[in-house]
């Protein structure tokens, strides 16, 4: 396993960072939360952030924190699907396909919410789950898995997640289409 500083990775995969922060901002605006500061990309740690007001509404907290996870994952699947067949299955040397694969993987790599995002949710999710909030109940295992994935970033788990989504997603999609 080799070490590459996080900011360098972020610069190489900058579309993912921007999409991640844009998703945070989008859900903040959707739930009408006050946004104090936004940084879409910078050479530092964190590489981007959105500072917003805290809310007691769990649904809002959930989507603001997890928005990038869903948004980035979806975009990763779409772009990688367009590139998956020529790159992996058909072995066609198409530069545009490789560009789309880079774009898809860059976005997928930054899908996992930061520990800060997850901490915000983790603080309130157990209490809300006890009170029978369905979204909180569903989110508990998801938050736990994403926590682990986040800590495993040192061993390239974020890249692993991007590849898994960018390869397994299109495989499942095309196999389902072929059987339809």
């Amino acid at each position, binding site marked *: 396993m080799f070490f590459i500083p996080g900011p360098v990775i972020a610069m190489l995969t900058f*579309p993912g960072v*921007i*999409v991640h922060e*844009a998703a945070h*901002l989008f859900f*903040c*605006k959707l739930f009408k939360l*006050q*946004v*104090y500061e*936004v940084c*879409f990309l910078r050479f530092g740690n964190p590489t981007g952030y959105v500072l917003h*007001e805290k809310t007691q509404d769990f649904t809002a907290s959930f989507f603001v924190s997890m928005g990038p996870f869903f948004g980035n994952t979806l*975009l990763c699947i*779409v*772009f990688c*699907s*367009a*590139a998956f*067949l*020529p790159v992996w*299955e*058909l*072995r*066609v040397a198409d530069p*545009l*396909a490789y560009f*789309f694969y880079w*774009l898809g993987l860059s976005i997928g790599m930054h899908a996992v919410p930061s520990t800060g995002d997850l901490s915000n949710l983790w603080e309130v999710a157990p209490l809300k789950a006890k009170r029978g909030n369905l979204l909180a109940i569903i989110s508990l295992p998801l938050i736990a898995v994403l926590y682990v994935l986040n800590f495993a970033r040192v061993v390239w788990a974020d890249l692993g997640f991007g590849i898994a989504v960018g390869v397994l997603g299109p495989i499942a999609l*095309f*196999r389902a*289409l*072929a*059987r339809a």
Partner: protein
Amino acid sequence: MHQATCSQCGLTTTVRSFYSMGGKNYCEPCVWKAAREAREAGQPSEYTPLQDNSICQRCGSYSGDNADHPIVGNLALCSTCAATISNWPYPHWLKVSLAVLLLLLVVALVHGRRYFHAGRAMYIGERLVEEQQYEQALPYLKETLTIAPDSDKAVLLTAKAALEIGDMGTADKAIQGHSGGHFDDADDHDFQEVKALWDRANAAFEKAAEAAKLEQQDGHAAEAAQLKHQAAELYPQGRGLAGLAETFDEGSAFEAKDYNLYLSNAQKAWEQYPSAGTAAAYSGALACKYAVEGDASYRQQSEWMLEVARLKIGSDRSQMKAFQLFAERIRHRLESRQIISQEEYDRRFRRQAAQ
């Protein structure tokens, strides 16, 4: 800017440099001391910075001595910043980037359309191969190869489907079209499966070719027939191998002078694989029966089948030349009622003529 006075030392200065603890205002050195003493006494020691509501917490703008900025959330903000944080605008470049991203998405989908088409055809072909519907799978897989001749998966599936229906030509074309038959992963299960099938088919056709050579020599018909049967067993999918094995049985029956079996095999071969070759062989078998039994109907049928064989050859010159040599020998058999092998016929008539 608002002023405040330290409750401990009496210092008076701007509010922003003061802290609040237990409802009292302190300057920075005094708040540390007070907090330490409170901790030692077991009392609450938390303190918070005092907020000067005349200063915007975000941009630092001053509202004047007599007016405070309104509190938004728990922050004093000027009207510009209050409007911004209530409805943070998407930057212009982000909107442009989003538009570019959507455009790229459309380009990706349009550009990838032919790959989707080829990929879909490959997955359908793969499913049909899994269901052993090789004949139906082949058109889909051939379609994939027109776009992706270097795809290991498509090539191996095509070769497998083609070999399973005995279409060596298509299998060969697919494999040779893939980097001249080179595959990176020789340990791949699919590659090994196709290789085994390919080797088996080649071995079978080599045996068939050997049998064809032996058939040209008198006294080796039984050996040739055996080889042909081995070939057919080795590669049962081989087109015509099973049929050819039966025609070789005819030769074997001819050599054994079992003309009933010879005729029965020749008739069966003609009915199963109607071609110029099987028609000619059937004519030869009927001529043998006529030579032995003298029944004119056999002669009539033999001449008829000879004509059928001639018509089936059509304009193929090389086939026509071989047919004429064969027809000459059959006519001799019908005229003389003598059954002689090709080698004997050549020795008696053709070499003599050549001399």
